[in-house]
């Protein structure tokens, strides 16, 4: 029984992506993995933006917002990867559990 996807379908997909991303961030010890989780979370959000934009009266706002998010995510990934590289230079590992120097 296939019917036209409605808002909830998109929201459901967004939520799944979000939760996958969060779980990825929370469980991966590899920094790269964590970054990938972040990308998932952001994209989950993007799905929501676009969906709301499509199904409500927001117009193009959501789409534009998601474009910003994508750009931002790219920038963030660049910075984060630089951090990871530096981290690796200093610690010879990318295990985030080893980076506990910010402990209070």
């Amino acid at each position, binding site marked *: 029984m296939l019917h036209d996807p409605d808002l909830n379908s998109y929201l459901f997909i967004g939520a799944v992506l979000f939760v996958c991303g*969060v779980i990825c*961030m*929370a*469980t*991966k*010890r590899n920094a790269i993995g*964590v970054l990938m989780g972040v990308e998932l979370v952001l994209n989950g959000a993007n799905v929501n933006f676009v969906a709301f934009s499509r199904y409500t009266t927001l117009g193009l706002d959501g789409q534009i917002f998601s474009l910003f998010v994508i750009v931002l995510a790219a920038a963030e990934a660049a910075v984060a990867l630089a951090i990871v590289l530096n981290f690796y230079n200093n610690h010879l590992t990318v295990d*985030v*559990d080893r*980076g*506990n*120097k*910010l*402990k*209070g």
Partner: protein
Amino acid sequence: MVGETLQKLLMTAWLLPLLGFVVEIFFGFWSKNPRHSKAAAWTAVGCIGAGFLCSLTALVMWGTASNAFDDGDAEGWMSQQADINHARHPHHEADSSEGAPPHEHEGADHDAEHHGSSEAGADHILTAVATEDDGGPKLERGQTVYSGTIYTLGVFGSLELTLDYYIDSLTLVMFTMVTLIATCIHLFAIGYMSDELTDEYVDHFAHKADGSHVHRPGRFYRFFAFLSLFCFAMLGLVLAGNIFQVFIFWELVGICSFLLIGFYTERKTASDAANKAFIMNRIGDFGFLIGLMVLWTYFGTFRFGDTMVDNEVVDQGLFSMVHRAEDGNFDRDELTGDVLITGTDGHVLTNEDGSNRQIPYYLLVVVGLGIFAGCVGKSAQFPLQTWLPDAMEGPTPVSALVHSATMVAAGVYLAGRFFPMFVQEVLLTIAYTGCITLFLAATIAMVATDIKKVLAYSTISQLGYMMLGIGVFGWAAGLFHLITHAFFKSLMFLCSGSVIHGCHHEQEMPKMGGLLKKMPITAITMLIGVIAISGLAIPGVIAFSGYHSKDAIVASALAFKNANSAHFLLFFIPLLTAGITAFYMFRLWFYTFWGAPRDQHVHDHAHESPWIMTAPLLILSVFAAFCAVGGDHGYLYLLLTGDEPAHLEAGVTAVGDGITLPAIQDIVDEHTTAGTWALVAAVSGTLIAYILYGTNFVNVEEMKRQLAGVHGFLTNKWHFDELYDALFMRPAHKVAAFCAWFDGAVFDRILHGAAKATVVVSKWDRVFDENVVDGFVNLIASATQSVGTSLKVVQTGRLRQYVMFIVLGVVALFAVMFTTFPG
């Protein structure tokens, strides 16, 4: 115009000594040789001498322009006087049942047509009519008062304080007397003070701490400067046209007296005496001030006489603001009994709201007593008599001029001048004050041994006579005695000065004796003075001035006693004292000039004074002997009484059980009786003095020993000094010390207490600040810190844990949102 000329003459006489003072006080600046030059003295003599000539001219002018010497028999001028009195108060005429005397019409006419001053703006003439000099009708007795304004001190709305002049017969006689005596005394002082003409004067009476005498430059010119200033002040006092101006010069003569008593500033006794004199006078002046305040508040003027411009009264004087009725009493409101304040024409003045202007009777008594208090101070009457004997610390010419002839008599003069305002109660007070004073002083004079002190007490006693005379309604008698006393007492003081000068400043009579041969002129002139003051005479043959004037006073007292028998003491005590007077004066003379020398050293040095000192003695002795010649028909008496107060003539009838004041005729009737009694008293006093001190019949020392109690009481001056010291001086200093203490101990202590309290509060403030305020702030800080510490465990540094927190946080947020806002 006679009035204008008189004013100019007297103003000249008044201001010349001031000019002299200015020249003399700066003498050191413009003299090359101020310590040795007599130029200052001659300046002073010139000024006062010229003043005398002016006064004499004025007196003669006044005498010729008026009918002053139209004496005839006593009855004659007195009835004439009565006519004029009636004429001066035209509204009396209707009441007067007497037949119209011949002069009445003329007098009334004069009263109606005042000749105003020809000069616009010159406030001139009053009660009087000035006539054309030659050919015109003569001025009548009692009508010759001139008054006007010299210049204004301040004007406040309707109130005006001015310097005025008031010229009547009394003013003129006083002017002449003062300038004449002052001239004589100035001359005498040139000789007496000549030992000041040196660069190094040795004062034998001032001892330094090491016992040596004080050496100082002579102060010859300063002495004459002070004398000139005094003459200026004294003449200003006499010329004064309002009671405030009298007060001004009253104070000025006081300060001159202060300067002259304290002339030997190095002597503690002199400066003490000067202070005492001034402060005691100020006590009297306190009363004077009260009188002035009441006058000012109720009458709004201080002027004696009315000021006229173009026949209109522009400024009413005090004397016409209260009106005496036929019986001599003041017009009073029938309901309240207050004295009505009237205009010159006798009509009652009204306030703005239409009510009658009036002054409570008791306040009029206060005025009288207040003014009289001033007189008490100045004339050294009981109870302020103690300063005058001490004032003898001044050089003898000062004692002669200031403290016997002029300044101390100013009190009597003022009582006479202000006489129209006195009510019976005041007069009675004056009489009793005079009576107590004359007796008290005479008793002390009996035992005093310092020649000047005897004269000083005698002065007080004689001033008491004058006051008594005025108090018992013998206005003319009191002032008559003032003039005669001025002559003979200044003569005696100068004689004593001559003796002191001759004996090298020895004043103790027990060291003198037998000076008659050494100092014949002094001794004889002194004897004239002594006879004059004692009132000795051979009636009908020869009588010196004192006989006439004292006789007049005793007669007034007798008439007063006849009218008010309860006050018999006012007659008997003066009578007794007349004997005492003769006694102590002859005692003085015998002690000094008679018998054998008691101190050979003093006697050897004694010598007659130079002519410049004896000449004034001779001049004054002539006046002392003959100035009153003719008694109450004589020139002096007639001149003096030319403008006597109008109500004297008929006397004053008692109100209720009050005092009756005798009419002039009553007094005249008693003359012979009183004169006889007084002469008997004087002769007995003289005889006793002769027996005790002129012969060797009685051992005086033995008597003294037997009467030691009385003698001691008298030599200690009735213990007045001790009494005042205990009653006033010490309490005053106690209060003063208390005030000073109070300032330090209470005000400053409160202040310091407040300051200390502030410090304590600040300390507490600091504690509070440091503990409470800072503590609170620190508490917050440490709390924050501990919270932070406890929260830091959360900050593990584990990335995945953080994500978990985020997730949990989001979930929790959702949970809260959904539970809080379901739907």
